[in-house]
């Protein structure tokens, strides 16, 4: 497959760019942040996403979606990154939709997927527990009780966790932290007894929550996929998410870079445009090269995930690791080259730095994915 967008994908990008650039530029995010909006995103905008078919992008056509692939999801994520748009797209339309479409029973799919596609259901995936993304070390327990399970444990960095109508929770139904087997995914009602949700206001002012589960009862119908065999499903869903987050990071990096290059062409010091200084030119050219390489790695990962989300693990690790280092460089250079103005809240460039920091941690940072690569290559 050619490593360029198809004509249809380019059209999708143009319409996403039009919609998001028009209705949700960075000013839209600022307004939500400054008003300390309780939801953290705009329902009205999410309805527009649904009308455009973005909410159901990964939902199969049989369940009311458009049945497109991860490349298309990545195209939307890149535009979201470019505009720092607060949106349930990642948690609901990418992570939850993939988990349900890949692991759900017919009844589960019928119950949830059409509502995801029409924008009426917000969902969140709860995986991380400690300070870092380590899905194999999940310690939260699912203990058999009667016909079902009792869930006990704490989750962190649950994107959209405080506004979700449905939680998809990864817990350990057997074995011990570190075991490959023994994980099970559950569909949990956030209003169920024993669920406590704390919205965590993060450095980037995007949605996240800590959720604790204190002997939360779930029945057998709420198991997503197979008991004890949820690890493979989770890994596939995480790979979809990682590739999508890498695409968002590409958008963050590319936009931060574009704004920085523009600034180099307008800011004058010592009687010259600062873009005339070779010290800055070479750093900008280096960053351009890194971003173009990232662009190729991200598209490769998205295509690989569409082909086979489990086999895609190497391409995904490369893309997310590269996104971690390149996007970090892009926002650091962005703030530095904006000088004092880069440190002000008034300028947007610092917002990109904050968002990049969160996206770096989300679903595994550069070190995590480089480590995975080393393990798979056996050295």
């Amino acid at each position, binding site marked *: 497959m050619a490593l360029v967008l198809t004509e249809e994908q380019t059209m999708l990008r143009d319409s996403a760019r039009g919609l998001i650039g028009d209705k949700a530029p960075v000013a839209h995010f600022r307004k939500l942040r400054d008003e300390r909006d309780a939801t953290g995103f705009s329902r009205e905008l999410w309805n527009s996403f649904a009308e455009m078919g973005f909410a159901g992008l990964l939902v199969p056509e049989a369940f009311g979606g458009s049945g497109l692939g991860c490349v298309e999801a990545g195209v939307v994520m890149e535009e979201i990154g470019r505009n720092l748009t607060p949106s349930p797209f990642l948690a609901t339309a990418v992570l939850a939709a993939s988990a349900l479409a890949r692991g759900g029973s017919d009844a589960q799919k019928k119950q949830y997927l059409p509502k995801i596609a029409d924008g009426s259901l917000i969902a969140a995936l709860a995986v991380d527990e400690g300070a870092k993304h380590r899905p194999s070390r999940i310690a939260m327990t699912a203990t058999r009780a009667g016909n079902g399970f009792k869930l006990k444990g704490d989750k962190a960095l649950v994107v959209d966790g405080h506004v979700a109508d449905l939680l998809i929770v990864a817990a350990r139904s057997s074995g011990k932290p570190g075991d490959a087997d023994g994980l099970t995914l559950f569909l949990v009602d956030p209003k169920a007894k024993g669920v406590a949700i704390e919205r965590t206001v993060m450095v980037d002012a995007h949605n996240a929550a800590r959720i604790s589960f204190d002997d939360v009862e779930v029945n057998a119908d709420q198991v997503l996929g197979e008991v004890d065999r949820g690890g493979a499903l989770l890994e596939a869903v995480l790979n979809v998410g990682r590739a999508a987050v890498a695409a968002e990071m590409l958008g963050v990096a590319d936009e931060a870079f574009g704004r920085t290059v523009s600034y180099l062409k307008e800011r004058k010091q010592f009687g010259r445009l600062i873009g005339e200084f070779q010290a800055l030119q070479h750093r900008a050219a280096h960053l351009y090269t890194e971003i173009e390489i990232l662009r190729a790695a991200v598209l490769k990962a998205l295509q690989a995930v569409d082909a086979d989300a489990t086999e895609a693990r190497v391409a995904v690790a490369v893309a997310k690791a590269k996104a971690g280092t390149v996007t970090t460089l892009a926002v650091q250079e962005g703030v530095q080259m904006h000088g004092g103005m880069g440190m002000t809240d008034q300028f947007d460039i610092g917002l990109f730095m904050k968002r990049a920091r969160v996206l770096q941690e989300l679903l595994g940072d550069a*070190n995590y994915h480089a480590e995975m690569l080393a393990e798979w290559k056996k050295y």
Partner: protein
Amino acid sequence: MTDTSDLEQFRAETRAWLEANCPTEMRKPMQGDEDNFWGGRNATFASDAQKVWFERMRDKGWTVPDWPTQYGGGGLDGARHKILREEMAAIGARSPLSSFGIWMLGPALLKYGNEAQKAEHLPKIARGEIRWCQGYSEPNAGSDLASLQTRAVPDGDDFIINGSKIWTSYANYADWIFCLVRTDASAKKHDGISFILFDMTSKGVTTKPILLISGKSPFCETFFDNVRVPQSHVVGTINRGWDVAKYLLQHERAMISGMGGRDGGRPLGQVAALSLGTDDQGKLDDPVLRGQIATFDVDEAALACAAERAVDLAKAGQLHPAFSSAMKYYGTELNKRRHEILMSAGGIDALEWESERSHDGARARAWLRTKANSIEGGTSEVMLGIVAKRILDLPGA
């Protein structure tokens, strides 16, 4: 638009042909320069397998698979050329012919040469009959290549050429040279240069090898003392040679940026495990180096994606012409990193310079040689300057 089933049939036929025709010895990674076959009037083969492989590929036009058949090429379109490359890579088949004629001069002749020049030179390149060298840099014209001073003065239908070139790779083995000469000393520096071809056996041409920090090298100094060359040997328009030179440099840079991958290098992690050993979990016995290798592997894999994408963008007519400068910069810096890691992994063993054990210091010499990657074909700093000016459109760059 080609039918998919046609392409699949081509793939099947190609795979079968390669399986039947590529000798086993030609499927092993190259160890040194003697494993390259360079062609030329005085060509010698390192082995029978090398000869057989070259001749079979030559007869199919697959030394230059994408050149037109009338010039000795294979006439393959982009999709089929990609399939051939993939099938060759799948069995580790070596390139049958290494040639500056193929990598550099050929593309420039196809674009700028007249019909007589194409008919004369391209088939001989494709068949490996003439070996070419490149006369670009001069002692006082390195990064500032356009300031070159080798003069070509008209004399009847000829030019008389005087001056000297440096870093002419394999000049002492080459049959012909493609050379930049100044044909108008009064014009602005970019506007008085011509791109000219001549025979290295011409009267007045001498060469002298250069000893590098890595030891023996293919580089030479080349001197021209009243060398007489017909004016008809100019490619393109007289005094417009800089256009040809720049176009050719794009191909040279694309070639150099791919060098890391072309040496058939083994995965770094494996190489390091051999010399360092591993702990009971199979992890390298140097956690910091292990991290460096993992980071390198990420960057190398991502660069491979970018190289693949550049080919696809070019096919779609969307590739920025200066992008090869970005790739040249990144690819060469990455290759230097690779060899720093190799030296670190090899430790004391990698320091030996003359022993049989070390294959005459192969690792150390290769490490030193890579330091030239970010200098030759335009330094990293020149590449970054080109990106800043032509792609980012930064002021005064």
